[in-house]
């Protein structure tokens, strides 16, 4: 029951600034969604604050003026909720699957996780401290291979950058990142049985200044229109 | 910020300076004790490193003393025991430094105007300060350089600018550290004259450090001879120069000083030389011989009234105008002063043997 605190919202009373703290990997998608939302509710204005999920949690805990928090993983959302509660029950609005990102045209002919175990390969992945790092570990475990990367990156974007620049041969990233990279890189799918699913929760934060707006935005993200936008950026629906 | 110093002197009344200075600074052990009366000028003379500049720094408050007391016009400005220390800016001292210290980021004019602008009492308008500064620049002959940077001035020009900068603030206590040292012969006389003219209309007291006896003679009422941090001789010019008691003073006055012991009208020196003198009490004494009363000859002049004659070697020939000073080394080192004519006649050269003779009556003897 995700609507125990639900407040009935109608276009009329959704107004003012709606401050949305969103994970950096949502930058493109949420910028679009924000625009559409403002079209929907002319009285409202969406203020977006993008940063690493954990940075955002730190900021909110420092009582940053947030109404909505969209995290790239459940653990950061949990940290926030356990620390300061919430206005609405967190709900998953998107999922993401891991992919192997490689050079355009896959010159090294990488076909799967197993190939990453090759020491001649420059493999980079996220640090175990960040979600995509944990996922990578799981994936290796599932595939039963031991991969020693050259570097544990601070975030998934760093992985993408290194592959795009050709400094790294391959890395574990999200499907959305591969799409975002366009033709500067290309993805090698990981079979579902070995893969993991990243869940993106969203919630209105405890002391949201604009609770009505927050509620409306959460609902809007969960609604079909936003979902199609997310899909366009490679996200999947939970 | 307005300390006792400035405010009290504000009235322009007469002031007195009394200084007992004890200060240890590196190799220097300074222990001096002197007074300067209102309107009086005390000249500090002494060899390099004697501590002259340091004394001035103490008086200015730039170097707090270790022991003793400095009193200006009855006000204690420095006393380590009572932990009193009036800051330099509140002492109303004027300090002309041995090496100019002009502000490179200000024009010469602004340098001279600095002091006037700096003090809060009396408040001086920028325009006023500049006009006063201009007057002073005129007096030291730098009117044309008013808007140049000090860095483009020559040594002497810079020195004169520094002089003007200090005089412009019309200080109550004036400290001059070799104010004329870098001036050329021509300018020096002029600046010295200006300086004296200013000093005559100056009711405070002044301490002057100089190497140039002429400065001392021209400007000083009393002279203190400083050597290795101690005052070895102090008194009026007459007193000090009449009876030099140190090699330095003798050099300064330009006379020969012979230290020895008198016994029965004869003074014998440590080196064994003997000087026949007119009557004088026995005992350790100084004998002063004026260079121009020393006659030079290639051979001893027999049968002359002279009863003193010493052999020696010429080490030094200094020509000065139409006179020549001849330095002679030997058992009794002497400097003789003869005319250029005499020199040419004798055709003297350094390194040659010579005989110097002096009339006993020309020798002044006094107990040491």
């Amino acid at each position: 029951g995700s609507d125990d605190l639900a407040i009935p919202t109608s276009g009329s009373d959704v107004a003012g600034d709606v401050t949305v703290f969103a994970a950096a990997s949502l930058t493109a998608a949420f910028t679009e969604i924000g625009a559409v939302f403002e079209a929907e509710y002319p009285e409202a204005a969406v203020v977006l604050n993008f940063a690493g999920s954990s940075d955002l949690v730190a900021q909110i805990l420092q009582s940053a003026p947030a109404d909505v928090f969209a995290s790239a993983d459940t653990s950061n959302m949990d940290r926030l909720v356990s620390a300061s509660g919430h206005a609405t029950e967190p709900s998953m609005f998107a999922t993401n699957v891991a992919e192997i990102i490689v050079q355009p045209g896959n010159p090294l002919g990488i076909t799967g996780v197993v190939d990453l175990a090759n020491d001649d390969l420059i493999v980079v992945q996220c640090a175990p401290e960040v979600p995509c790092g944990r996922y990578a570990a799981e994936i290796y475990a599932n595939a039963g291979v031991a991969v020693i990367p050259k570097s544990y990156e601070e975030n998934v974007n760093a992985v993408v950058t290194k592959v795009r620049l050709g400094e790294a041969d391959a890395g574990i990233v999200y499907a959305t990142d591969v799409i975002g990279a366009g033709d500067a890189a290309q993805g090698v799918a990981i079979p579902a049985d070995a893969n993991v699913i990243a869940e993106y929760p969203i919630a209105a934060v405890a002391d949201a200044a604009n609770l009505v707006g927050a509620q409306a935005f959460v609902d809007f993200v969960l609604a079909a229109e936003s979902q199609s936008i997310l899909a366009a950026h490679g996200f999947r629906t939970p | 910020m307005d300390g006792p110093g400035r405010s009290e002197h504000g009235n322009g009344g007469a002031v007195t300076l009394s200084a007992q200075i004890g200060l240890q600074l590196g190799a220097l052990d300074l222990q001096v004790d002197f007074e300067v009366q209102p309107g009086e000028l005390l000249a500090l003379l002494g060899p390099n490193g004697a501590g002259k500049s340091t004394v001035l720094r103490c008086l200015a408050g730039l170097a707090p003393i270790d022991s003793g007391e400095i009193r200006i016009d009855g006000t204690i400005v420095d006393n380590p025991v009572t932990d009193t220390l009036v800051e330099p800016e509140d002492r109303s001292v004027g300090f002309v430094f041995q090496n100019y210290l002009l502000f490179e980021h200000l024009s010469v004019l602004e340098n001279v105007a600095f002091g006037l602008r700096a003090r809060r009492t009396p408040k001086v308008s920028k325009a006023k300060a500049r006009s006063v500064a201009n007057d002073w620049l005129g007096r030291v002959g730098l009117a044309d350089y008013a808007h140049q940077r000090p860095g483009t001035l020559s040594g002497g020009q810079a020195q004169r600018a520094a002089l003007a900068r200090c005089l412009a603030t019309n200080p109550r206590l004036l400290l001059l550290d070799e104010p004329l040292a870098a001036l050329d012969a021509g300018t020096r006389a002029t600046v010295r004259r200006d300086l004296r003219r200013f000093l005559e209309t100056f009711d405070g007291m002044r301490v002057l450090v100089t190497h140039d006896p002429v400065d001392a003679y021209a400007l000083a009422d009393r002279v203190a001879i400083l050597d290795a941090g101690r005052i070895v001789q102090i008194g009026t010019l007459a007193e000090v120069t009449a009876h030099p008691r140190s090699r330095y003073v003798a050099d300064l006055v330009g006379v020969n000083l012979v230290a020895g012991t008198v016994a029965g009208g004869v003074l014998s020196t440590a080196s064994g030389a003997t000087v026949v003198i007119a009557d004088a009490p026995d005992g350790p004494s100084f004998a002063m011989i004026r260079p121009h009363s020393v006659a030079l000859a290639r051979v001893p002049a027999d049968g002359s009234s002279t009863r003193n004659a010493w052999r020696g070697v010429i080490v030094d020939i200094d020509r000065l105008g139409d006179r020549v000073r001849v330095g002679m080394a030997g058992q009794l080192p002497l400097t003789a002063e003869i005319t250029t004519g005499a020199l040419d006649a004798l055709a003297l050269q350094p390194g040659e043997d010579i005989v110097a003779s002096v009339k006993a009556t020309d020798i002044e003897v006094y107990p040491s």
Partner: protein
Amino acid sequence: MSKRRGGGESLPVPVLALAVVAIAFFALPLIGLLWRAPWSNAWTYLTDDDALTALRLSMVCSLWATGLSVVFGVPLAWLLARGTFPGREAVRALCTLSMVLPPVVGGVALFFALGRRGIVGQYLDQWFGITLPFTTAGVVVAQTFVAMPFLVITVEAALRQLDTRFEDAARTLGASRWYIFRRVTLPSIRPALGAGAVLAWARALGEFGATITFAGNFPGTTQTMPLAVYLSLETNPEEAIVLSLLLIVISFGVLVGLRGRWMGRAEANMATVVP
């Protein structure tokens, strides 16, 4: 003809060689950026509203930060160079704090100090209703925190190198310490002050970690250029490169421009006694 000028321009070869290597080391990455920059659609990125807003904010904040660094940093430098008090060394070290601190941690530390729950911050909030985090003021604070040390250390070194006898001379002319500070000390360290200000400004302009942590990343209020660059790295690395280049071009302009006015040689050499 250069030879005719005499002076220092004919440097010893080994030194020259090292210097050239150093220049190449700085030049290559820039060339790299220019080389990879997407010139075709650079213009569109540059004229993008968000970019311009971020740029304006960066300029305003970094200048404020520089100003504050000078106002507070110069006195501090003076205290360090001339003051004699216990723990002077510690205070000096304290000033380099924000340099060794990873920027993000710096931001967190600022929260502890000036955040709404911070040691001082809570009172700023309760008594004056001032909150620094997530405001433009917060950006300035973060940048100042990171930038000031560069000014302090540069100026302090200059103050130590300064010949104090000139200040002595000024004192005997009746100038108060404050007057001397303004009219003698400051002018004579102008080159170092200029250098320090440039360092501080440049550092503030490039500041990222402390800013995004302490002030957040709100377009218009706290999103400075580096933050915008960071975000566009997420979505569009090409834009990131172009914006970085813009940042560089601007700072170049400012530096080359300021240079002449700020760091003349004439003012530099306070120690000249005679030519």
